């Protein structure tokens, strides 16, 4: 089943076409990778899918609904979660709080309920806490739950961001370079973790430069270059594709 379909997505910054008519289809329950050289428009594409940036033209269809003009928070409410390449952690909040607020979309009390301490507001906080503690336990972050997220080493902050996104129980999870800056061992554990998400039924779309990770876990790979989709296929096909090698290594690399 098609979970998300992006059609003819176009975005310019000044005179530069960051994305030029990109089509992408994500099947539910799969792991899809988006690769391409630096500046090829991968993060811009993520920003457009999540509503962080408006697009100039094109359509984004999620479960049959055209969400292309929706603000980010409404898309999140549908079950689209993401992490960021340049971490966007809530630094002065604890690890536990970071993950708790990830579950925001499943709670409903507002200023009134919160301020007057109504039972529902308190119950919701308990639910958020239970859910977050469970996730922290599972991701090996439990020992850091009380620490300020900004004080953690980089690799752990990445994990906290992933935990925060998962706390929203997303249908679609967008991971922007989940392995950047991680050690080989950490990368391996992330790879296993992402595969585990798939088994839970979460659709994963990831941008990644670590080719071993990409080829190891994804079922479908989409290649961008200068804002255009130049190829898509299975990891094996992508590895053999001349145009992809050319994009990464230049003309001579492709010949050799």
């Amino acid at each position: 089943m098609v979970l998300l379909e992006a059609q003819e997505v176009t975005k310019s910054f000044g005179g530069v076409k960051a994305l030029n008519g990109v089509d992408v289809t994500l099947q539910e329950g799969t792991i899809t990778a988006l690769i391409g050289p630096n500046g090829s428009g991968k993060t811009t594409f993520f920003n457009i899918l999540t509503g962080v940036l408006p697009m100039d033209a094109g359509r984004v269809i999620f479960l049959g609904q055209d969400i292309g003009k929706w603000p980010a928070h409404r898309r999140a409410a549908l079950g689209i979660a993401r992490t960021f390449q340049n971490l966007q952690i809530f630094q002065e909040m604890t690890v536990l709080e970071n993950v708790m607020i990830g579950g925001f979309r499943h709670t409903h009390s507002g200023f009134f309920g919160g301020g007057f301490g109504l039972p529902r507001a308190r119950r919701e906080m308990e639910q958020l806490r239970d859910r977050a503690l469970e996730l922290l336990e599972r991701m090996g972050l439990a020992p850091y739950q009380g620490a300020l997220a900004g004080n953690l080493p980089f690799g752990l902050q990445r994990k906290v961001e992933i935990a925060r996104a998962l706390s929203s129980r997303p249908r679609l999870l967008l991971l922007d370079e989940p392995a950047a800056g991680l050690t080989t061992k950490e990368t391996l554990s992330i790879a296993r973790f992402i595969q585990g998400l798939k088994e839970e039924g979460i659709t994963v779309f990831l941008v990644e430069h670590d080719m071993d990770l990409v080829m190891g876990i994804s079922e479908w790979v989409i290649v961008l270059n200068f804002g255009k989709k130049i190829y898509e296929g299975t990891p094996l096909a992508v590895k053999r594709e001349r145009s992809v090698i050319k994009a990464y290594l230049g003309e001579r690399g492709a010949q050799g």
Partner: protein
Amino acid sequence: MKRDYLLLLTLTVTILLLPPLLPGDYYVEVLLFAGINVLVALGLSLLTGYAGQISLGHAGFYGMGAYISGALTAHLGWPVPLAAITALLATAFVAALVGWPTLRLKGHYLAMATLGLGIILYILFVQLRGITGGASGLSGIRPVHLGDLYFDTPRRYCYLVWSIVVLAFLFSINLVHSRTGMALRALHYSEVAASTLGIDVAMYKLKVFVLSAVFAALGGILYAHYITFISPETFGFMYSVDLVVMIVLGGMHSIWGALLGGTFLSLLPEALHRLEDLEVMVHGLILLLVLIFLPKGFVGLIEKVGEKIHGAP
């Protein structure tokens, strides 16, 4: 969270015991006005310390509360509670009207908009002579009473003010420890990340702005019905600045900063009175020293001392 409720209990007991121990009505009155400042600063601290938005026009909301409630009782003879509720609603409406367009923009547009609003409201307080009495002030504001119980002595009114302060703190403690409070802090650190978690950033900023304006208006109402005579200079730009100074001195990252900073800045002029000409200079110097040596305000200092005593956190 438990610690906050304990602190609130301590505050309540202190306030209950304090007025009879003070040497005279004058000091009770100082405490009373400190309570009003703390209330207004508390609202600002929710806006600035938690949601990261700056307002330079809170004196205007303070004035709206005072003038609307005051004028409705003075000119039209409305009962105080009805006038007060009308003033709160009107202030909330104006805050929403100004906040709606500005809070959708990223950056510190709210500071600019509220700066302008504060000045416009001040001009209205001076120029709408028929309603506000203009520069010579509005008199004849009705005092507060509950049935036969008149809050006409400094001590009674002081208890009334601080009861409201305690309730406002209770509300604020609940709020900052709720999902809503977490959402406000989250958008403070990253609006983008907050929005991708489903938080309607513009709406949350708007609501907390309106809430803080309502706190300010409530302070103004309490002020007007105690003093029963108000004039525009109380509600000028300087008071907006004072409020920002209060929360910075107290420590913006905690609602208790509003209590410490608000009280401190209310008492400082009393302590410096006898210095006469030097007062302004010493006042400025003290603020400067606090800001240089206590970047996280009084609350930050207390937290540091606490950590020293209990060992590293």
